[in-house]
């Protein structure tokens, strides 16, 4: 009975689905989707809708045989890593400061929120204007994409530190700095990991966008190249690579999050 299951869940807290239940339904859906795709692709010209077999062949070619995809990713990496690291270095302390201190939140809050919500992709042409074509506008784009979510998540971590924890520290005579280092920051650590995961997701998006707009290296170049040659199969293959990478990264980091802080509820 659903209610019994629900109660069993509350007895143990977190309940991760059994591995078998987790994998079978999506696989079934995958098979169905591929079958439909195959049927649809039968009469279509290759440049328009290539069939699954062709795409898989391209996929294999790009990843295993020629490794083009990995080369392109490596080129994109520098902007991605630099931008993400910068975003973390700026975003995490800012977020925690905002969470710990209401005045900081009042001053910076609207901007962080604004940057998170706003279509910051519009800023990329601006970056290109001021920073030229090359690594800098891409780093700037990645930064602007990922810093807000990192700051906001760390803000949640610091702000949600139960008042009780802080008071326990104070009662035992902790100074302001000690309260920060011994209660707020440890509480925020799992949130920082989450922030990293979300920030990375956004950073990747920023990288690809920047490359498509600026379009000189890495994945952007690869994609544009295939587009001009009407090579749909390769385009789709690259997309599949991106999808898989994204999912794997998500799953791995999500597990790390749960492993680090088993007392938290996973979203």
């Amino acid at each position: 009975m659903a209610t019994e299951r629900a109660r069993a869940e509350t007895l143990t807290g977190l309940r991760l689905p059994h591995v078998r239940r987790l994998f079978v339904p999506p696989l079934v859906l995958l098979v169905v989707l591929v079958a439909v795709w195959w049927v649809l692709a039968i009469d279509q010209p290759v440049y328009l809708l290539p069939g699954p077999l062709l795409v898989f062949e391209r996929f294999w070619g790009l990843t295993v045989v020629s490794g083009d995809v990995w080369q392109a990713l490596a080129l994109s990496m520098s902007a991605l890593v630099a931008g993400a690291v910068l975003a973390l270095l700026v975003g995490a302390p800012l977020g925690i400061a905002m969470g710990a201190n209401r005045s900081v939140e009042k001053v910076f809050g609207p901007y962080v929120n604004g940057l998170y919500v706003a279509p910051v992709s519009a800023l990329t042409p601006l970056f290109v204007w001021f920073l030229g074509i090359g690594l800098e506008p891409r780093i700037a784009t990645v930064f602007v994409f990922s810093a807000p979510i990192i700051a906001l998540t760390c803000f949640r971590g610091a702000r949600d530190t139960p008042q009780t924890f802080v008071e326990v520290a104070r009662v035992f005579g902790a100074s302001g700095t000690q309260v920060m280092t011994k209660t707020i920051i440890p509480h925020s650590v799992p949130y920082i990991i989450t922030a990293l995961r979300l920030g990375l997701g956004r950073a990747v998006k920023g990288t690809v966008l920047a490359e498509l707009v600026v379009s000189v290296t890495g994945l952007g170049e690869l994609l544009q190249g295939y587009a001009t040659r009407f090579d749909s199969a390769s385009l789709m293959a690259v997309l599949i690579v991106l999808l898989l990478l994204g999912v794997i990264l998500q799953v791995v980091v999500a597990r790390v999050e749960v492993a680090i802080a088993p007392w938290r509820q996973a979203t």
Partner: protein
Amino acid sequence: MPDAKIVLDGVRKAYRTRKRRDSFLGRLLPEPRPQTVEVLALDDLTFSVPEGRFVSIVGPSGCGKTTALRMMDGLVRADAGRVVVNGEPVTGPRPECGFIFQDFGLYPWRSVLDNVAFGLELRGIAREARYERARANIELVGLAGFERNFPHQLSGGMQQRVGIARTLTVEPEILLMDEPFGALDALTRRVMQFELVRILQARSGATSVFVTHDLDEAILLADTVIVMTARPGRVKEIVDVPFPREERGEPLIESAEFSELRHRLWKSLSEEQAARSASVRQSLSASRS
């Protein structure tokens, strides 16, 4: 007993829970075959509730008293044994059973009036008719004037009164109450206990089962108190409460007889509480993989 309204006979209930990994690495890697541990909540639980009586069930936390209560209204099914209400085995919720939840269970999007009228609404009773009955019960629980308010605007005590009014509105023969005052502070709890005495006197005749861990509450409200053992739960002892209904009030709690009864139940209960600590220790070490 021949005229027993509710009968539990040899009831057994077990839950399966997953063993939690204890190391960081253990949690990191996926589990191909999660190990489970069986928790026996109830084992050979047997008692009956005569018609028209108010029975309190007390016991240490986790003894399964809430599970037993939920079985009476078919929210949980027993693994073995029988649960019989009104002569029929229980397969699901019954219209003659009213259930009051510990966390109130009020619908936040409905006003007090709509919450209280909920049961009648489900039965298809026309709006004016159900509102009339709802209003009567809202007044009975002392919330007249709050019909248009929403749950989040009310205090805990008031919310639980709405819950009580909602249940009373469907006029159940049997009242099942799952630690209804557990979420309230001590003062409000005491006030609500006296309120409940008053309300139930206005509506005599309902068979009631009341689960709580508060001894005073159990003795104050009930005709009979059932003490359960620590997990796995069974009946430890059954004690009759000899005080007449009219005397259930403030002075009674202060009296010597009340203290004696409380003391006796307290001793019984603390033995079980100690047993429970021992079993918690045991299950913690068992779940270390």
